[in-house]
């Protein structure tokens, strides 16, 4: 403490002369006087016990790089991991725009000084609207889990009913989130799947539907990769019972797969990480919720909704918050659920992604993923003891592979793959025991034929 420490680059007013001027202006002699409302007994009169500081960029960089070098990346290894986080290509332009500090360091300015952010997010809402074929899309929430949990609570409010039915094949983390977020007063029941197709068991759904069901929620594709062939029927049955149909989707599939609105979904939700956001160890997520443009639906969104409006200059595009009074910002606990900082920058990134891709790009990408997944499944299925896919259903990019016909456990097989610098799919043996020894494999547009052949060869070597 005695040595004269250099002024920290991030704290300009710690220069002693400046401090003295400012103290004089306030009329005090020490900064400590400013804390006079904090009782002495609550004052920490010792330094925090923290690691030694690394004040120069050289030292800090070295430290961080050393730690992170202990990670292996999906560029170094060949990865087939999915299950809610996807290794799609991040276009250079997406990277460029989301590191622009005008966007990166902005926050909650007005639709004048921050007009750019409002327009960028309005365009995000709009492009998602086209992808989803719906007229209302929110400013992003935290992630797909939150989007799904809020979507079913919206259904509860809209229908004024309490029960929620979900397919058993939804993402386990989404179910966990829903159970916590819906709380003890809103019962959530799972509807079993047909063992062969992985689709919702319609007879079980019929048995479960009743006049107190607010929503039927399923994912398309499901967590296990299957596309739901009975989508129209499910929506019809839900509506006949007076419930809403809520569907979770991966937006990157919607260039080729029908959007939920086309088969009767009332609320669509999901995660936009696939649209130009890097994986970041699960830190790149943002959730969307979309509905029809009806007052009863709009009023139940907790998120901000940016809207277009004229300004005092004819022809000028202005923006603002739609129905702001419904939010907790305006009415605290009388508002709808709650809203706060979430994932807006990923919304802007997704907008850039969709603008680059256009309708052609989305179709080509979607078709390409379908083709590669198809190829991978066909070749894996050729291996003795391996079944791919496990379900007799259409798939998009993910599929479940069964290893019951082999002598190894999935863990052993994946260890072998690891030694060949391959991350196999997510092991489902513990979380989905009814599927036996199985794993969820994910194929994206980044996989080449050589990659897929390499996987097949490695699996063949790994199993007996």
């Amino acid at each position, binding site marked *: 403490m005695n040595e004269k420490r250099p002024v920290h680059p991030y704290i300009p007013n710690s220069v002693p002369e400046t401090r003295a001027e400012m103290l004089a202006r306030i009329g005090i002699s020490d900064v400590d006087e400013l804390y006079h409302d904090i009782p002495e007994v609550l004052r920490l009169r010792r330094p925090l016990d923290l690691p030694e500081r690394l004040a120069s960029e050289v030292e800090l960089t070295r430290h961080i790089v050393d730690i992170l070098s202990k990670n292996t990346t999906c560029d170094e290894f060949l990865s087939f991991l999915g299950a809610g986080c996807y290794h799609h290509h991040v276009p250079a332009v997406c990277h460029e725009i989301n590191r622009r500090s005008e966007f990166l360091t902005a926050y909650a300015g007005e639709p004048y000084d921050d007009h750019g952010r409002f327009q960028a997010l309005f365009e995000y809402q709009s492009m998602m609207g086209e992808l989803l074929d719906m007229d209302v899309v929110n400013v992003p929430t935290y992630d797909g889990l939150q989007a799904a949990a809020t979507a079913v609570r919206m259904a509860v409010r809209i229908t004024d009913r309490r029960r929620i039915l979900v397919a058993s094949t939804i993402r386990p983390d989404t179910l966990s989130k829903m159970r916590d977020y819906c709380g003890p007063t809103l019962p959530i029941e799972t509807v079993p799947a047909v063992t062969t197709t992985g689709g919702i068991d319609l007879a079980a759904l019929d048995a479960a539907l009743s006049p107190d069901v607010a929503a039927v929620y399923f994912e398309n594709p499901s967590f296990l990769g299957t596309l739901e062939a009975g989508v129209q029927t499910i929506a019809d049955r839900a509506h006949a019972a007076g419930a809403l149909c809520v569907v979770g989707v991966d937006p990157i599939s919607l260039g080729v797969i029908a959007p939920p609105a086309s088969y009767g979904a009332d609320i669509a939700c999901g995660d936009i990480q696939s649209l130009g956001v890097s994986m970041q160890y699960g830190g790149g997520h943002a959730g969307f919720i979309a509905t029809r443009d009806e007052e009863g639906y709009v009023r139940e969104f907790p998120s901000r909704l940016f809207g277009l409006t004229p300004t005092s200059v004819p022809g000028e595009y202005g923006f603002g918050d739609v129905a702001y009074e419904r939010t907790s910002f*305006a*009415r605290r*606990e*009388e508002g709808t659920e709650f809203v706060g900082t979430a994932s807006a920058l990923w919304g802007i990134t997704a907008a850039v992604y969709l603008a680059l891709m256009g309708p052609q790009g989305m179709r080509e990408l979607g078709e390409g993923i379908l083709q590669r997944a198809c190829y991978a499944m066909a070749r894996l299925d050729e291996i003795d003891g391996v079944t791919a896919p496990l379900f007799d259903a259409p798939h998009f990019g993910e599929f479940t592979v069964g290893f019951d016909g082999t002598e190894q456990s999935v863990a052993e097989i994946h260890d072998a793959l690891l030694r060949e610098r391959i991350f196999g799919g997510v092991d489902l043996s513990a979380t989905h025991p009814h599927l036996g020894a199985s794993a969820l494999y994910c194929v994206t547009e980044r996989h080449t034929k050589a990659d897929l052949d390499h996987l097949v060869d490695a699996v063949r070597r790994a199993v007996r």
Partner: protein
Amino acid sequence: MIDPNAHAGTCARIGLIVNPIAGIGGRVGLKGSDGEEIQRRALELGARPRALDRAGEALERLRPIADRIELVTCPADMGESVATRCGIPSRSIRILDTVGRGSTTAEDTKTAARDMLQAGVDLLLFVGGDGTARDIYDAVGEHQVVLGIPAGVKIHSGVYAIGPSTAGDLATTFLTGTRKDTRESEVLDADEDSIRRGVICTRLYGVLRVPDDVHRLQGAKAVRRGGAAAAMAIAERVVDEMDDDALYIVGPGTTTRAVFERLGLDKTLLGVDVLRAKASVASDAGETRLLALLADNPPARILVAPIGGQGYLFGRGNQQISPAVLRRVGWKNVTILATPEKLNRLTTRPLLVDTGDSATDRSLAGHVRVVCGADDVRIVRVAAVCDMNRESEGAGIR
């Protein structure tokens, strides 16, 4: 209403009443302008009537729609003198002949307002202060949408725009817009003699219907969904929790009135009404009646809302709920209702009680729960007036 897409044909009809002496005291340092004595002294001191100028400023803002307005107004300085200010063609201006030329009394204001209501105006603009607002209320009650153009000194009633040109803008928006939302705004009875003596004393006089635009109305806070929705949310919660065995003594105001509205019952705005088992038992009851109803000690509750700008809980317009009544019912059976807007207007000042008996006042002082919405409960302080050593207007701003 005006259809902004139509070129001709649909017109809006507005009424204009100017109280030409309103605000005359202000510039020369006199508070208010009621009473001939004050007015005479003000004119002696060199004050000139500003009300007409204010009316002109407001009308000027209607110029863009001048060709689609019909104006009904009073002769000479009660309106006619400024009627053409915004370019309304003379053929669209009608001067009432029921008001005498050169006459400018309160009675004239009321006559004019009643005539305009009869003639069917979409919006009644008036220039004045609290006194004029009371006259308008006497004449048209809640049957007419009105808007005040301020010209008085301090205005307590919430029916005025924040300024003359804002009033004009608000009128234009209201007449041409697709939203026709109105809100109930309080008309207060401000005792100007007391004010001149430095004691602010307001009580609820009535309620007028004004266009719902919180940003442009005086005294309103930035809550866009109008007071009516908030009051109804409170009323729904109160009705849901009602005990059918209990007697409910309900004080004056619009928030408490909403409880009766929720039950499909009428309530006096300024009086204390009683209900039990969701049916009306007494209307505008005095202390004697209330004590009679409480004579055989039934379970009882009191529902009150703070009244007026100063947040009086007891003592301004609900003296019927006397110390004796309060003792009978018990302080813990008093439920306070207030919209968040009302509470926030107090900033950090407490609610006040002035029942006339300081012992009762002190027993009511402390912290209380206030029902502010369907799920919104807030805790505020209640203070006895005798313990308040100053009437503060601001929130201690330095």
